[in-house]
């Protein structure tokens, strides 16, 4: 029974936390964009416009829902739900800290440490496409369908290099458990480099970074919603909280993907050369590890914003070309090299 209680507390905690980050992200995105573009950005609601996401949320909730006349009612409503759901459930296996000892009981900071957590993330990620497809189809709008089509093709194409890049990480650390991988990144190798995924899998890291931008529909891969071409793509017809779910799901996705980058490639809660856990008590270490992890996550979230406001968008065929002609061969090559290394060093 106690295990259940702890699990539920963890689930609630991480959901609230991720929601909080995603909310703040919407603010960071707008303020960051403003900063880069020599303007002010939202600055009316609360200090520095910090309550802007709240105001936006209230606005979205209270707006009228408009169902297009020719839309498919069920699919239309299912779309945003299916988009947001995978984004939220992926966090079930992603660690958010090392561990904490409370009342003599060791609690790992992860909802569930299953030994196939890694594959679970991939599987859940591959389901996110349905939300977009249903939204695009259900709207019964040509622009929406184009957006849906683009997104389907894009997500299928980029899931392959994503999976292959991740597989190489599994080769290196020999486990499907995200926690094992995170723990294995402590210390150094070759004497001076931190034992992080990014140093062991530099090519894989680049591939993974490119692929997650495509998976998250972010610039330069935001073709499914490229506003200058297909109005707003799959969510052209949506308004009110259904649109809110799409937009919000996207930010939750960003948080999940960024956390994965940190856990897999950037040493999770480890700091290079120093093992802080020795200096801290079991409780404070739990909190500190959590903070370190999310400090790193914050950087990658910022990177998303940074990239978005810096570079232009690809064209559809260029996205496909990059995926199939560059990323997949490179990912296979990376996998091969990794396997060779492991075989030779074993």
């Amino acid at each position, binding site marked *: 029974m106690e295990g259940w209680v702890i699990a539920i507390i963890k689930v609630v905690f991480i959901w609230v936390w991720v929601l909080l980050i995603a909310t703040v992200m919407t603010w960071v995105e707008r303020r960051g964009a403003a900063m880069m573009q020599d303007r002010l950005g939202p600055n009316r609601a609360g200090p520095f416009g910090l309550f802007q996401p709240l105001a936006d949320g209230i606005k979205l909730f209270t707006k009228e829902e408009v169902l297009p006349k*020719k839309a498919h009612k069920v699919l239309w409503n299912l779309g945003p739900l299916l988009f947001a759901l995978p984004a939220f459930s992926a966090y079930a296996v992603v660690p958010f800290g090392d561990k904490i000892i409370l009342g003599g009981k060791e609690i790992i900071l992860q909802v569930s440490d299953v030994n196939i957590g890694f594959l679970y993330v991939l599987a859940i990620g591959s389901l996110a496409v349905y939300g977009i497809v249903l939204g695009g189809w259900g709207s019964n709008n040509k622009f929406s369908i184009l957006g849906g089509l683009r997104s389907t093709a894009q997500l299928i194409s980029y899931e392959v290099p994503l999976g292959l890049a991740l597989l190489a990480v599994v080769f290196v650390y020999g486990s499907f458990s995200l926690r094992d991988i995170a723990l294995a990144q402590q210390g150094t190798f070759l004497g001076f480099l931190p034992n992080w995924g990014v140093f062991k899998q530099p090519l894989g890291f680049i591939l993974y970074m490119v692929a997650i931008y495509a998976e998250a529909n972010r610039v330069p891969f935001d073709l499914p919603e490229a506003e200058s071409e297909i109005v707003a793509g799959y969510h052209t017809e949506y308004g009110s909280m259904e649109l809110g779910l799409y937009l919000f799901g996207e930010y939750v996705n960003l948080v999940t993907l960024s956390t994965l980058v940190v856990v897999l490639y950037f040493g999770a809660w480890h700091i290079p050369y120093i093992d802080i856990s020795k200096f801290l008590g079991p409780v404070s270490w739990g909190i500190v590890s959590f903070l370190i992890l999310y400090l790193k996550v914050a950087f990658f979230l910022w990177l998303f914003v940074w990239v978005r406001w810096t570079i232009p968008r690809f064209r559809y065929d260029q996205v496909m070309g990059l995926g199939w002609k560059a990323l997949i061969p490179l990912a296979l090559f990376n996998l091969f090299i990794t396997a060779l290394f492991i075989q030779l060093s074993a």
Partner: protein
Amino acid sequence: MDWYFWIFAVIAVSAALFTVATREALSSAMGLLTVFIAHAALYLHLHAPLVAIFQVSIYAGAILVLIVFVIMLLMAPEERAGVIQANVSFRSFGTLLGLCLIGLVAVGVKGIAVLIARRSLPAGFGDPSVLGNLLFRRYLLHFEVMSVLLLVALIGAIYLCKNRAWKHKERV
């Protein structure tokens, strides 16, 4: 009472019925998606998480997405699968296939008693490494034959599509 099993079994069966009964192609695909996910849940229940994950990521995440892609590519939203269902040759062929399936299941039911008997799981059941060992050691030949088969299918598909694409280019 194994309520977990029954919940998902009922979901799976009713979703499967919906899949064949509905007249809208995309709704049908969504029914299939539900079947896959219910199956995955059942696999989890059977202590085979790896199979469950594969069920989701391969069937739901890849194959069904492609089916949906094709539906979106080829059909206007108003168009319903009804056109296909009304086709007599499709219908008769479908009936034939259905009968074959029922026959197969009937044959399989004979051995169900053996499966149903409770046994302890073999060591490392559902573990990725065990599965890998099986695939790449014991069933290596089957595995490779399978991959060659898929390769042939792939090349065939590309050939067919390319031919069509070239024809188009000449006309444009």
